[in-house]
């Protein structure tokens, strides 16, 4: 179900947008409009929707209007025209009181530079959103402390933000945004200021949080790698407009125009990069003699919903799914052979990524990488494969 529907959104910076708007409709370029009317076109003719529980990524080069678009969604920037329906309510028409309530309860934001309040302790930073709603001191302490625990910062409550590392500061930023349990999370280059390792860690953390919380997240980035890793769908922006919206696979395999193609130029790597270099180690697996309980425990430990079955000498037999295993346990059966899916996708170690993508897009299982003798060598998961194509450093390396 769509939670956010944006229609014909336009933002023009300046005092007299009318003239600029007219010129835009006539198809004039941004630079010409700036020259003639002294008005800057931020974003123009934006149409998209975001589903409930989806991670929607806005991607594009610097100055393409990502931040402007994101800030229109909670009206930190007043849109010039268009509609933004959130749960059926056009927030552009919301009165100040209403808007404040929406910001307090429904939409939160995480900032690139963290934007923590330097004069408040970590706990009081996180509690800020509750404080301005008039929640009692006791209650907001409790909730903020809980949230800090969720992001792994228990014990830091009374520190000042400046005493924390960048990654920790952004965890505080995340906790602050989550504390009033909003439906929608706006994240503007939230991890761009972090160094690569921490950044990856935060991406994974966000995804695992998202698994349990199921927020609707709009995530701005200029990094293709990041977009592929965390985005359910991606919108590519250029010069104030959205040029293509779709899943990572759609955009990679089917770029709608030259710009997108250039953007994902690293796709060429997909012909060179093979399964071997993007697969992860073939663990965990279960062997034929293991019972359903062993399989379930392993899956729980690793947070996965399916697991490969191998013979004693690690030859691939097939895959079992969590729902089947649970049923078996309920029916008190012991032999997992009965529930193994054997017709699963397999690739060789030297299969190029470009051939893997369509397979991954089709199947609901992870893809097995096997040798000629059918021995299981590795496992392919979607995020890693897509990221493998742009590992060199995302679009910075390819376009700029």
């Amino acid at each position, binding site marked *: 179900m769509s939670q956010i529907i944006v229609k014909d959104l336009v933002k023009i910076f300046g005092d007299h947008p009318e003239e600029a708007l007219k010129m835009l409709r006539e198809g004039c370029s941004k630079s010409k409009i700036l020259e003639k009317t002294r008005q800057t076109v931020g974003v123009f003719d934006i149409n998209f929707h975001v589903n409930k529980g989806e991670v929607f990524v806005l991607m594009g080069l610097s100055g393409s209007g990502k931040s402007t678009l994101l800030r229109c969604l909670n009206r930190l920037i007043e849109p010039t025209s268009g509609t933004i329906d959130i749960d059926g309510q056009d927030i552009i028409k919301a009165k100040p009181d209403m808007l404040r309530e929406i910001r307090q309860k429904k939409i939160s934001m995480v900032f690139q530079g963290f934007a923590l309040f330097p004069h408040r302790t970590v706990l009081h930073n996180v509690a800020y*959103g509750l404080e*301005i709603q008039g929640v009692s001191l006791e209650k907001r302490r409790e909730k903020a402390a809980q949230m800090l625990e969720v992001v792994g910062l228990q014990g830091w409550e009374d520190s000042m933000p400046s005493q924390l590392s960048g990654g920790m500061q952004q965890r505080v930023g995340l906790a602050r945004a989550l504390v009033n349990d909003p439906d929608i999370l706006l994240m503007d280059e939230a991890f761009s200021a972090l160094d690569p390792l921490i950044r990856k860690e935060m991406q994974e953390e966000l995804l695992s949080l998202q698994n349990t919380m199921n927020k609707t997240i709009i995530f701005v980035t200029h990094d293709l790698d990041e977009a592929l890793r965390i985005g359910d769908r991606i919108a590519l922006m250029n010069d104030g407009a959205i040029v293509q919206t779709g899943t990572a696979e759609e955009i990679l395999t089917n770029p709608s125009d030259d710009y997108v193609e250039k953007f994902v130029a690293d796709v060429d790597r997909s012909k060179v990069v093979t399964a071997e270099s993007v697969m992860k180690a073939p663990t965990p697996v279960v062997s034929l003699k293991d019972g359903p309980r062993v399989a379930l425990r392993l899956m729980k430990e690793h947070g996965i919903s399916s697991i490969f079955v191998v013979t004693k000498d690690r030859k691939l037999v097939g895959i079992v799914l969590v729902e089947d295993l649970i049923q078996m346990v309920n029916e008190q059966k012991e032999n997992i052979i009965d529930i193994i899916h054997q017709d699963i996708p397999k690739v060789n170690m030297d299969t190029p990524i470009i051939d893997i993508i369509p397979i991954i897009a089709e199947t609901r299982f992870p893809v097995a990488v096997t040798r000629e003798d059918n021995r299981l060598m590795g496992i392919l998961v979607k995020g890693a494969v897509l990221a493998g194509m742009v590992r060199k450093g995302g679009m910075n390396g390819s376009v700029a």
Partner: protein
Amino acid sequence: MVVLPKIPIGLWVEIIVEWAQDNLGVVFDLVTRMIEKTVTVIEQATLSVHPIVVVILVFALVWFLTNWKTALGTAFGLYLIYNMELWKASVETLSLVIVATVLALLMGVPLGILTTRSNLVHKITMPILDLMQTMPSFVYLIPAVLFFGLGQVPGLIATVVFAMPPCIRLTGLGIRQVPVELVEAATAFGSTEWQKLTKVQIPLALPTIMAGINQCIMLSLSMVVIAAMIGAGGLGSEVLAGISRLDIAKGFEGGLAIVIMAMILDRITQSYGEKRKIKQV
């Protein structure tokens, strides 16, 4: 040669002042009485205890606010004033400075905040502040005397006018220096304008606002002698008497007492700002 007619600026100001005198007399009377009363209360309260007791109390207070070194220096300075037999004059001056500073802050801080809220207010205020700061301070004495007569009150009013500009400026500066992203964050979480101001902008601007308060106090003290010319009394009249009688000793002692007071007040206000800065790091 064409002789340009003289623009009667002086005359206009005179007309305005006269009009105000005729029509706002009640208001001026009220203000005068209120200020006089406040100053007297502070004065009487301080003078009702023995100076040594005051010295000890101030010593404890300064120690609590800053450190023992400053406290010791303060106590010594105050004792010196007592010893020079300038205690009563100093208390008069201090009461005047305190009331003037409080008034300047009561008007200056909100005005400073206002300049950050609206461009129009900013544009109107800044040239007026320039004018207030460059105008020789003697000039303030004339309307002050006309409206409020001779005595403490006109001296105090002139002091307020003279001491307020840095307070307005530094308050505005402090608030404008708060990073945009922080204000944006406060907005994004649904703060009202008032919440933004009190929970984010003012706390973060506080070190700068404190610097403004410090400046304000220093300027008030620097007006002491000038205010004495229209009968504000206190240490200022000691110095004036010293000058008019060419009594070097008297003049110097009066001046020294002013300097001591300035140093004490400066250390107290500055250390407060520093303490906050350390806490933030």
